[in-house]
């Protein structure tokens, strides 16, 4: 089923869907583009932050290294006494705040031949410098890593971070530098200078690095041990690899390997430490083989982008709603008058032309439409009024025409048998008027006791003029006949009277005969009428030859001649108008003279009324209901004399 949607709905749907797509595209593009910018900035700033931090750590380490290196160098001078060594150690510690503690450990029996241990150790404790002499049977320092490794490698090393129980009792890392003396031209390992740094300050330094809310920095040793991490349980106890094992993360392991190789990179760390997405920046330090990592929580990084997108989405939605309301308002403003107009149109269609059209003052297309509508309504009203008037007038004319037709028909004798008391003759006539008023006429009457006049005519044309002309002709004929003239004289007189004032060129064809009803002698005259048929009783019917005299009513000075024929008992004169022979069937074929004559030949022993009826039926069969264009008028006059009918 097709649901019907109004213009407002369609307009709103179309515009709003376009707008939605545009807004969504803008917000989406903006989100992804700003995210890229933020990511690039984050990488940049993390790189800066890491390098800055690494630099600061490096600067501390390098200071410590240099101090230790210098002392080691000076210890290669064998002239230093025991006290001088102690003094040097103490002074160096006092002058270098970065150094937590410093030891100068000699090989057994090296400085003093009777002493197994010689390892003075100065360290900071409670803001003051404390002293302890390392080495006793329980703590044989020359077996410790910080001593052994540089001794074996013959180069300085940073130890892995460790918890020093022997010295300061803090978490520390130690830089150990071996020093040598030349004895007997031979370079001999003499001992180790160590500089400890407390990892607490490292911890503090890294803690100061605040990355968003939950981001943090951490430091790995050469072996991957956590030197600094916000989670204190990891420090010393775990390496990045044990953590990777624990978290079952091959990715963390691979990142750890890259960190230990001293690389630097900015990588996503999704879901390794927790469910939150994170980025990691790592970089190797210059000294100690350490490497620094900084973790960025992605959602915090993206918070600004998210907020911007949210605001843009909100603005978009608000704009969308405002736009929707505006469109609906505008569309309603357009469609409301249209709806009213449509209602008015229906009302007008149902015939109420007096309806007031809705008052629409807008100067747009809707206003134009309303105006056109108003004009249409007015025109329609005028047209219908005109039509009503015209129709009324036409109906009046038609009704008058009908009356005229009735009157015209009523002046023709219609009562048959017309003269039942006269057995000498029988006369029968019929007229089948066409739809339109025509001008056929016939008449019969006694001129005197023994002379009977019968006539038939056809006025040219149709309509009221023909009807008038016919009435005038019929009246004239009767008046003139009663003067006792012969048919030719009657027609001459009637013709000159009709032609006298006939500007309209109307004319009438006439056949007029006067019969002596005792003898059957018949005088006749013909003014341009088609020849009647003479049907001798028992003989072959034939046309009464035309006289070639013109129609009546055209030329004033015409003389019509009179012919005479004698009828025998039962003979018939059949007069008709061309409505008979020119009656048409639907194929536009004429009834024709020939068909009429054939019919009459086939009719034996006819009587006047039956003859007319037979012909009438034949015509009806022929025309098959086709519209009749002309009056069909027939008159049959049968002479009976004194014989039986």
């Amino acid at each position, binding site marked *: 089923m097709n649901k019907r949607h109004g213009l407002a709905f369609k307009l709103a749907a179309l515009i709003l869907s376009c707008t939605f797509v545009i807004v969504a595209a803008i917000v989406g593009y903006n989100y992804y583009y700003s995210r890229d910018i933020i990511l690039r900035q984050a990488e940049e700033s993390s790189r800066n932050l890491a390098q800055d931090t690494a630099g600061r750590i490096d600067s501390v380490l390098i200071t410590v290294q240099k101090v230790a290196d210098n002392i080691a160098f000076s210890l290669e001078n064998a002239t230093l006494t025991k006290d001088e060594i102690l003094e040097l150690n103490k002074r160096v510690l006092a002058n270098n705040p970065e150094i937590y503690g410093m030891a100068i450990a000699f090989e057994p029996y090296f400085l003093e031949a009777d002493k197994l241990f010689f390892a003075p150790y100065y360290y900071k404790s409670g803001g003051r410098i404390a002293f302890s002499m390392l080495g006793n049977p329980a703590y044989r320092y020359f077996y410790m890593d910080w001593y052994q490794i540089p001794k074996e490698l013959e180069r300085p090393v940073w130890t892995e971070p460790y918890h020093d129980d022997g010295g300061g009792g803090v978490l520390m890392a130690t830089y150990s530098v071996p020093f040598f003396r030349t004895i007997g031209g031979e370079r001999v390992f003499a001992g180790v200078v160590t500089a400890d740094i407390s990892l607490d300050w490292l911890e503090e330094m890294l803690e100061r690095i605040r990355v968003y809310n939950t981001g943090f920095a951490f430091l790995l040793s050469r072996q991957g041990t956590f030197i600094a991490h916000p989670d204190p349980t990891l420090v010393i106890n775990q390496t990045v690899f044990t953590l990777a094992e624990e978290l079952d993360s091959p990715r963390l392991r691979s990142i750890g390997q890259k960190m230990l190789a001293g690389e630097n990179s900015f990588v996503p760390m999704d879901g390794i430490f927790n469910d939150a997405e994170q980025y990691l920046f790592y970089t190797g330090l210059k000294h100690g083989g350490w490497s620094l990592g900084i973790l960025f929580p992605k959602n915090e990084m993206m918070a600004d982008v998210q907020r911007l997108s949210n605001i843009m989405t909100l603005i978009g939605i608000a704009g969308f709603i405002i736009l929707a309301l505006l469109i609906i308002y505008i569309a309603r403003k357009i469609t409301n008058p249209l709806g009213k107009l449509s209602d008015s149109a229906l009302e007008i269609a149902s015939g109420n032309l007096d309806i007031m059209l809705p008052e629409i003052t807008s100067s747009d297309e809707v206003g134009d439409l309303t105006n056109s509508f108003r004009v249409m309504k007015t025109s329609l009203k005028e047209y219908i009024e005109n039509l009503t008037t015209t129709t009324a007038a036409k109906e009046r004319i038609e009704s008058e025409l009908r009356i005229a037709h009735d009157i015209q028909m009523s002046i023709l004798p219609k009562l048959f048998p017309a003269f039942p008391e006269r057995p000498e003759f029988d006369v029968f006539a019929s007229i089948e008027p066409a739809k339109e008023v025509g001008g056929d006429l016939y008449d019969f009457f006694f001129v005197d006791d023994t002379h009977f006049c019968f006539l038939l005519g*056809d*006025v*040219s*044309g*149709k309509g009221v003029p023909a009807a008038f002309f016919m009435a005038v002709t019929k009246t004239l004929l009767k008046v003139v006949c009663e003067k006792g003239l012969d048919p030719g004289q009657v027609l001459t007189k009637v013709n000159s009277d009709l032609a006298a004032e006939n500007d*309209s*060129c*109307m*004319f009438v*064809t006439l056949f007029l005969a006067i019969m002596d009803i005792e003898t059957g002698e018949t005088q006749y005259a013909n*003014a*341009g*009428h*088609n*020849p009647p048929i003479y049907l001798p009783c028992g003989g072959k019917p034939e046309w009464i030859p*035309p006289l*070639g*005299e*013109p*129609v009546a009513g*055209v*030329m004033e000075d015409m003389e019509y001649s009179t012919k005479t024929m004698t009828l025998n008992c039962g003979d018939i004169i059949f007069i008709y108008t*061309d409505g008979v022979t*020119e009656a048409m069937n639907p194929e536009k074929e*004429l009834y024709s003279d020939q068909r009429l004559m054939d019919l009459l030949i086939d009719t034996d022993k006819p009587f006047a009324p039956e003859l007319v009826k037979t012909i009438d039926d034949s015509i009806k069969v022929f025309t098959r209901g086709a519209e009749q*264009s*002309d009056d069909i008028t027939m008159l049959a006059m049968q002479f009976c004399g004194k014989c039986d009918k």
Partner: protein
Amino acid sequence: MEFTNTKNGNALVVKVTGRMDAITAPEFDGQCKNWIETGDTKVVVDLSELEYISSAGLRSILAAAKKLKGAKGEMLFAGLSGMVEEVFNVSGFAAMFSIYKTIDEALAG
């Protein structure tokens, strides 16, 4: 009903084709008006192609002839045959007008 007009010397030959009845007869009146306006007052009407003529047609011919006469012209007929010729004879038109067998004769006459 159709009209074909041909100018021949000072005469206008009008060939009438089709049926001339109450419906088409007014066309003949209209044509006649044109002839008088263009000054063609000698008109030869060729009726050889006319199939049928009714009393209304005869009346149109009468009216046209009368108008032409008023304009000091004349109307001649040629090529009558069959039904049309019979109607002309019966109605006495043959006696009222100049009728010729062919157009050439009409033009010569």
